[in-house]
């Protein structure tokens, strides 16, 4: 398939972007929640549901073999996409949340006990905090919190204080879903390893904005979802270093994850199937592979230019609005902008924007501790992808000004 080099070619791939909402052209700025799907992903899902459908790894018939090939080639595609050492290090899950929970269970059972501790970040999504609270309750470990400063950036000096030798794992986000800042994960990983801790990176947003190279990062786990990366919902990835995954026991038992079963003793299948009990979402996984091939077909320079120009157009427009405060200031800002307007409620703004055809996110965005940190009950978030346009950012800023005027 030929490369996508401009905005017209890009948008032509997304039928969902061409619809009207409340009679207005849709401006879809809720990509941080989920991305729209390109045609080739949609057609693969249709093709499999209407023909190429047979349960994988089980049968000798043609349909099963075809689906198994699609499923396993998606594993190879993911491996290459994030530069993992081998396909066995790629585990398919139902999403970022499931991936974090898998590690919070299996890793904790194997490596964490009373007296140990775990570090999470106060800016993070509930799905990267709650599983670790639960793991600490079970194991008797202590949960420690990496704080962020006024700009939303990690306080790295504090990290050194927290790393007292008791820390077994740090689980933090590559890019905050609220603040849109690319965190210094490489530096954190270096310091963690020096102190004997392993690191899980929540890449739900990180995988979407920029190249991820797990070897270069030297992270121990990297997790993300398919649906924010133009793939289908219900698909996710857990990357883990082989030596860690080998030592961890399975989290769920069932078919496909076993080598041999008797009623008294079961031996488990080798990686990666040890962690993939039951019939997986094989159509979804195949389509995730297709989504990644789609991402790889987009010209990198086009993507970089879009991310930079969309972010600066949004910042320019928003900074001129009186009483509006943007959260998360950094040179490494991505087109994920959350803000609050003095004297105006975020839900009112989102409701009026919706009426004008603009889809944004509002509320706590699953980050209640971060909202508390900034003394708020919610924010509005505009999150963009390279298929969004400068025109849309201007229409959005106009719509926002109109909504604020109505509410003030």
């Amino acid at each position, binding site marked *: 398939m030929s490369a996508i080099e401009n905005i017209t070619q890009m948008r032509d791939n997304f039928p969902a972007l061409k619809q009207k909402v409340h009679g207005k052209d849709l401006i879809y700025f809720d990509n941080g929640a989920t991305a729209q799907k390109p045609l080739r992903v949609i057609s693969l899902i249709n093709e499999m549901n209407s023909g190429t459908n047979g349960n994988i790894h089980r049968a000798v018939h043609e349909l099963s073999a075809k689906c198994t090939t699609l499923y396993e080639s998606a594993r190879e595609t993911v491996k290459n996409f994030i530069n993992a050492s081998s396909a066995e290090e790629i585990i398919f899950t139902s999403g970022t949340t499931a991936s974090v929970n898998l590690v919070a269970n299996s890793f904790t059972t194997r490596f964490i006990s009373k007296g140990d501790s775990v570090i999470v970040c106060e800016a993070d999504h509930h799905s990267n905090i709650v599983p670790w609270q639960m793991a600490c309750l079970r194991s008797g470990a202590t949960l420690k919190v990496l704080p962020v400063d006024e700009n939303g950036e990690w306080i790295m000096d504090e990290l050194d204080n927290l790393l007292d030798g008791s820390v077994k794992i740090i689980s933090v986000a590559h890019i905050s879903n609220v603040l849109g800042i690319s965190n210094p994960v490489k530096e954190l990983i270096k310091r963690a390893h020096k102190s004997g801790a392993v690191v899980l990176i929540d890449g739900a947003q990180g995988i979407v904005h920029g190249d991820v190279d797990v070897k270069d990062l030297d992270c121990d786990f990297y997790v993300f979802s398919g649906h924010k990366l133009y793939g289908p919902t219900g698909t996710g990835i857990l990357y883990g270093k082989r030596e860690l995954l080998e030592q961890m026991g399975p989290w769920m038992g069932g078919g496909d994850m076993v080598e041999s079963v008797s009623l008294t003793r079961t031996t488990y299948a080798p990686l990666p199937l040890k962690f993939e009990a039951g019939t997986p979402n094989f159509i979804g996984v195949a389509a995730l592979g297709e989504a990644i091939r789609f991402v790889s077909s987009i010209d990198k320079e086009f993507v970089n230019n879009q991310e930079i120009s969309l972010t600066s157009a949004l910042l320019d427009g928003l900074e001129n609005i009186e009483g509006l405060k943007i959260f998360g200031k950094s040179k490494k800002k991505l087109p994920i902008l959350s803000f609050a307007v003095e004297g105006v409620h975020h839900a009112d703004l989102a409701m009026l924007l919706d*009426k004008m055809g603009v889809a944004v996110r509002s509320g706590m965005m699953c980050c209640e501790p971060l909202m508390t940190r900034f003394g708020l009950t919610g924010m509005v978030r505009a999150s963009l992808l390279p298929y969004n346009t400068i025109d849309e950012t201007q229409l959005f800023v106009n719509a926002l000004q109109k909504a604020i005027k*109505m509410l003030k």
Partner: protein
Amino acid sequence: MSIKEVEQQIVEEFSVFTDWLDKYEYLIDLGRSLPIIKDSGREEKNLIKGCQSRVWLAADYADGKIWFTADSDAIITKGIISLLVRVFSGRTPQEIIEADLSFIKQIGLEENLSPTRANGLLSMIKQIKFYAVAFAANKQ
């Protein structure tokens, strides 16, 4: 006036709006002009938590009727609340139990009461009905 008649009155008031903008401006005005809950009512026990906005609802029972006061931190939600309070407050429990709220659909605001909107309004209506059932049971 019966609940049905008040609902009809609201439908007529809204029938003058041809544009969604005018309708929402009216809701914003309603939300702004009405102090519908006493400060003492804005407390934790009356709070209905939505992901998007918070709603407070208090109920008093006197002379066989239930009197509601309510509030929200979001102004459009508050505007819609004021319509609900206008319909429900000062009614007998039986009247409230029987009310079907079809006027919400007629004035084109049903999307705001959908469970997907997470603004606390649907929970508020459930809570209103719950109060009515509770007061009706107490009476007997």
